[in-house]
């Protein structure tokens, strides 16, 4: 009976035989945990994973990167809705020349429907800074800092739909349920500040972006690595001591709890799970102090408020400006990942909710830029002034670009997945540098096309992490932020 091959078809045997080199794991393993059970991953998925050594008592204790890099922290400024590259940072004089024409190679239908004619940029471009980088008048404040920025003009994505695009930029997959970039970073690196969450998602005053929590979720990584969601206005839910409960009563509950837990732990000496839970209550207590403290931006000097613009312009701009100050304070305190959103889902309020501009782009982009430009520029400048850019990578990004031609309605630009622009600045990246090019219309990436996989591989590299070795076993695969793709764009490294 014992020829196992008889129970399997010829085809099956053939497939199996090719995998002999993998060998069969023996069953005489010693003390095992799941990761040990799965320890035969050497070589199986390419490079062997580097597993972070996580202290169950405090999952946020700092851990070493895979290799030495200047960046210790990362700030991601995410602009949902898709910022028009051809109206901001990607100067295309051909659009001016071809304005109003419809060359034959324009597709008949794009994401939202029939296409219209080529449109010149809605704002004038001028050379800026020492480098003379062409930037439009839409973003005058950011334009002043181009000498510090490193642009990628040849980004491409896999989808022209916002939620999938957000997922792809932020989690490396268009589908749902994968860990976000921030979760991967905190999983690998822990945090320098153990009294604040390791990863903070500062959501737009108007609400969450279209992919909601997925943009800063932990996916299948432990929940400890999800982004904690708060902004300058709203603390994390349930942070604040409940109304009607006095501080002393609160404290006596906590003290009693820890006493009960200590007694219980005696029955299970050294149990890491129980100890971790005790520690989590201590950490929660610290956060009840540290988070309101960090949210106290009213204590910032007037000059800072003025610089960021918390007292000028639209209400939305003021709110966003406060979020920018919060972002700086978090970076200052050593929070590992700060993700700052400039836009929400399409129902967030006041008619404009994000950068999406299918109609009247001249108005919608202008309104959104008014909110984003000054506070963001002030934030980057402030970080620079405080020397924080030496150890902080700043990333400005969006899910895709917009078309060089108008939609059928003649006033808006549709989604462009084949060419868009993001920039980075700060620790580890070149200054005043532009990488890659889109074609003469900004329609498709032309020189050094850079996929989102490449982009994410590069971001991880800048954080000292090898995107091929930062992985987590989930349902049959060592999952990575970059799936099985991605090349680090070495040219942008300082």
């Amino acid at each position, binding site marked *: 009976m014992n020829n*196992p*091959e008889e129970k399997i078809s010829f*085809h*099956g*045997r*053939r497939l*199996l*035989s*090719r*995998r002999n080199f993998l060998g069969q794991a023996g*069953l*005489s393993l010693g003390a095992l945990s*799941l990761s040990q*059970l799965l320890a035969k991953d050497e070589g*199986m998925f390419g490079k062997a994973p580097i597993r972070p050594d996580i202290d169950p008592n405090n*999952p946020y204790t700092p851990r070493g990167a895979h290799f030495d890099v200047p960046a210790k922290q990362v700030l991601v400024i995410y602009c949902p809705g898709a910022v028009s590259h051809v109206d901001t940072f990607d100067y295309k004089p051909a659009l001016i020349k071809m304005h109003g024409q419809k060359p034959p190679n324009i597709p008949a239908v*794009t*994401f939202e429907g029939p296409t219209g004619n080529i449109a010149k940029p809605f704002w004038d471009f001028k050379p800026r800074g020492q480098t003379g980088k062409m930037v439009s008048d839409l973003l005058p404040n950011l334009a002043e800092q181009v000498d510090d920025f490193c642009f990628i003009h040849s980004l491409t994505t896999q989808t*022209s*739909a*916002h*939620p999938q695009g957000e997922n792809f930029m932020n989690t490396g997959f268009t*589908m*749902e349920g*994968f860990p976000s970039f921030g979760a991967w970073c905190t999983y690998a690196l822990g945090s320098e500040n153990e009294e604040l969450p390791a990863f903070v998602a500062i959501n737009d005053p108007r609400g969450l972006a279209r992919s*909601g*929590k*997925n943009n800063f*979720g932990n*996916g*299948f990584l*432990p*929940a*400890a690595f999800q982004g904690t969601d708060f902004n300058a206005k709203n603390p994390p*839910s349930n*942070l604040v001591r*409940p109304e009607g*409960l006095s501080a*002393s009563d609160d404290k006596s*509950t906590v*003290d*009693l*709890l820890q*006493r009960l837990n200590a007694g*219980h732990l005696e029955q*299970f*000496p*050294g149990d890491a*799970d129980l100890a*971790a839970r005790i520690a*989590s*209550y201590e*950490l*929660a207590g610290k956060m009840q102090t540290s988070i309101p403290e960090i949210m106290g931006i009213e204590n910032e000097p007037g000059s800072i408020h003025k610089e960021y613009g918390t007292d000028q312009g639209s209400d939305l701009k003021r709110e966003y400006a406060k979020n920018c100050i919060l972002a700086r304070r978090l970076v200052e305190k050593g929070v590992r990942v700060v993700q700052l959103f400039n836009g929400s*889902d399409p*129902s*967030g309020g006041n008619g404009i909710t994000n950068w999406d501009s299918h109609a009247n782009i001249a108005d919608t982009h202008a309104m959104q830029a008014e909110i984003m430009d000054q506070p963001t520029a002030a934030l980057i400048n402030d970080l620079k002034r405080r020397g924080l850019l030496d150890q902080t990578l700043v990333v400005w990004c969006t899910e895709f670009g917009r078309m060089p031609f108008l939609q*059928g309605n003649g006033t808006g630009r549709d989604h462009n997945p084949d060419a868009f622009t993001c920039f980075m600045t700060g620790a580890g990246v070149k200054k005043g540098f532009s990488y890659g090019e889109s074609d003469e219309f900004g329609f498709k990436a032309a020189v050094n096309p850079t996929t989102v996989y490449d982009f994410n591989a590069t971001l991880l590299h800048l954080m000292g992490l090898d995107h091929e070795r930062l992985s987590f076993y989930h*349902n*049959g695969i060592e999952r990575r932020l970059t799936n099985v793709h991605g090349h680090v764009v070495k040219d942008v490294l300082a």
Partner: protein
Amino acid sequence: MTTLSKITLSLILPLGISQLGAEDTIDFRRDIEPILEKHCIACHGPDEVESDFRVDRKATLIGGGGSGIETVLPGDPIGSYLIELVREPDEEYRMPYEEDAVPEAEIALLEKWIQEGAKLPDDFEEEAELGTVDHWSLIAVERPEVPKVKDAANPIDAFLLEKLDEKGLAYNPAADARSLIRRTSILMTGLPPSAEQVETFSKAYARNEDRAYTRLVDELLESPHFGERWAQHWLDVIRWAETNGSEANLYRKNAWFYRDYVVNAFNEDKPYDQFVREQLAGDQLGAGEATGFIVAGPHVPAATVGREPSAIRQARADRMDEIMQTVGASMMGMTVSCARCHNHKFDPISIKDYYSLTALFQGIEFGSRFPEIAEDDPARRDYSQLDGDLEAIRSTLTKEAGVWQEDWHGWNDVYFPPIKTSKARITFKTKNVRIDELDIYGPEHPELNLAASKQGTVATTPKAIFNNLGPPSNINDGIKGTMNWRPIKEMPEGVWPSVSFEFPKPQLINHLKVSSNRQYFFETEYLTSYSPGSPKKFVFEVMNESGAWVEIASTEDLDQQIKENESLAVHHENLQATIDAVLEQGPQPSFVGQFIDPVTSYVFHRGSPENPKQEVAPAGFDSLEGDLGLDSSSPDPQRRMKFAEWLTEPDHPLTARVMANRVWSHIFGTGIVATPSDFGTVGAPPTNQVLLDWLAAEFVEPTVTGGESWSVKNLIRTILMTDAFRQSSAPREDGLAEDGSALYLWRFPPRRVEAEVIRDGILQASGKLDPRLGGKSFRIHNEKKTYAQWQVVDNHGPHSWRRMLYQERMRRVDDQIFTAFDFPDCGQVRSKRPVSTTPLQALNLMNSPFAMEQAGFIAERAKQTSNDDDVAATKELFNILLGREPNADELEASLEVARNGGLELVSRSLINSNEFAFLP
């Protein structure tokens, strides 16, 4: 045109690569092998086998490697993948990878070789050597001999003790009565035992351990809460949720029918093979709602996919992949999706297998239908009564009015006397209309939509109101939902929106059906931006033989008649009341999948629907004899049924093993295979394969335990009766040193309980838990605009005091209390929840309105039974929450807190305590 003409003899060829005259024939050794050795063999030979492709093996050199695509089509160089790869303009995909391209002259030689039949020398390596090792999980189960082990209470203990003995370990002593009942109750029902249950059991246990425990197990298995607990596990695996996910994250109407099906299936102890069959083909087995399984995963609705044809194809492929993940992870324990873009790297699943498996489900689309119910279902009887009433009113109206309108909320029907015409027109008396579909029926074939473009009917709209965002072809394309017909926004003065239908030949018609978004009515609810129904004011005309429009029905006239004619008004009132009753008590649409005509399936090269290669028949895995005798013409129901039968054959190597292991995993915290949805080579090897095989064999064919075949309850009972389960969870030095995670069960492994157990346990302790089973999920969120995020509105009020299983399960939405406790976001399959500990959990359980309020209720309850005696009340509080009295130290500390700030503070401490949150 042929690429052979590209051979340019004047090219200077590198040394070692031959030059040929046009008449020379290729000699493989002389002309081709050097090229392969120069460019290919380093990565595709004996040293490295990238993509499972070797150029020194005939099988792969010709037949293809991991991509599943044949490399060489003899005689057809242009169609050969090898040539495509070396000519690929995109460097990312070109071969050799990250090297210079193969020179044109060498490519020409390869082409010529293929053109001439791709002949290989006789002594070329014929076959890869056949291996002798197979993967254990793919070999049929052989019931193992039970080892003879002293003191083993039953076969499971014998297998376990044998292993433990090898490690020099043994079981812990038996658990105390309180721990045992707490553990067993939580694992079986998700609810901790009440103080009374603990007391009763402890006394009975003291008298006769075995009898008391056997009775406890029997009671728990018969508890209606058993099904709720085990449904939760199953729903996790398939990431079932009541929203679509993605941007709009729309609520899936009546998706909960499936949740209740699963609860009932576990409660009734539906044989597992039947459970599997019904979920795949319940429409044919009188359990239509069971197919909610197939569409459990997330999907992106059409409106968010966009209008590019390639994006639409990609979205369909993504939905098929969600189905593959669901079926693969839950029933097969295989990571099927890994073969979507190339042959599975580790398991014997080829890309062809993957697309064969998708072919089984090509007849399914994400959406709603009326679930099929059994012939003898009582609901059928109630409905047929209403159906009769409706027909009676309709026949009265036919006689007395001739024309009438029915409002079915999701659409309107207008009936009128039969008339023959070749052209019909509807004019809406509302400017801003959006119509997804308008159907026209005749008395001869009342189910056949004569307006459909499929029937050759053409819909047109006046030029002046044409809007290219919603052309009139949308009104009769059979696609319901957001892809609608709409006129331009700024309508010319005095013009009403209208659409004309021209039939290919004169048709007898008597009925039209019009809707603005029939899909949303069937599939979703809780949207403020969508009100079901369609414009109720319009005129319907047909063209007579002399080419003039004749009015057939006008809603305005109809309203006027009703106003003037009392008897007609009464009939209409009755009509609408009956329709409303049918909508409420009759069959309801439910998001359990829609049936569509299956298309032919192809292997998608690199997973891209833009690159279809060979056709595949619907089938199971080739390596598991998965040929089901089906082909591309097989009807959808047959495909799924055949697959279900294949999967539940008693000797299928995976089905029973995977479920037995799943059950084990939920009981002991870790499966015998620690990766319950991956029984492949990358998954964890079994810690005790003979035990798992014995369990699987006993599950399918009980010989020792004497229960029914495939009985999940019997399987569970067998496991619960072991000493392994009944032992204490106390730590022991030798055990911790040898087997820290207690995978070999030298103790019962303690662990934190899930979100549901904490929440439901609190509600039970406060006496507020509404224990009723099933039904519509309770809501904690708002009603929202289509493209808004769900907001938590009330996550703690009395309406929410049901078991958490019934809290609407929204993909990636935070309920602001319990989702923080590793509650899955339902984006990915989750065979086992991680247990992580975070400060947010602590904050939620300390400060949320739910926790504060319930802590107060629990304290109140403790006080009620203790006549203002705070010592008695404190003791009662411990009994309620922990099933035990406080020790002296705890009592003293608690009393001090209670006397200073109130007993609810003690209650708050206890619901946060480790003891409350851990399975003992």
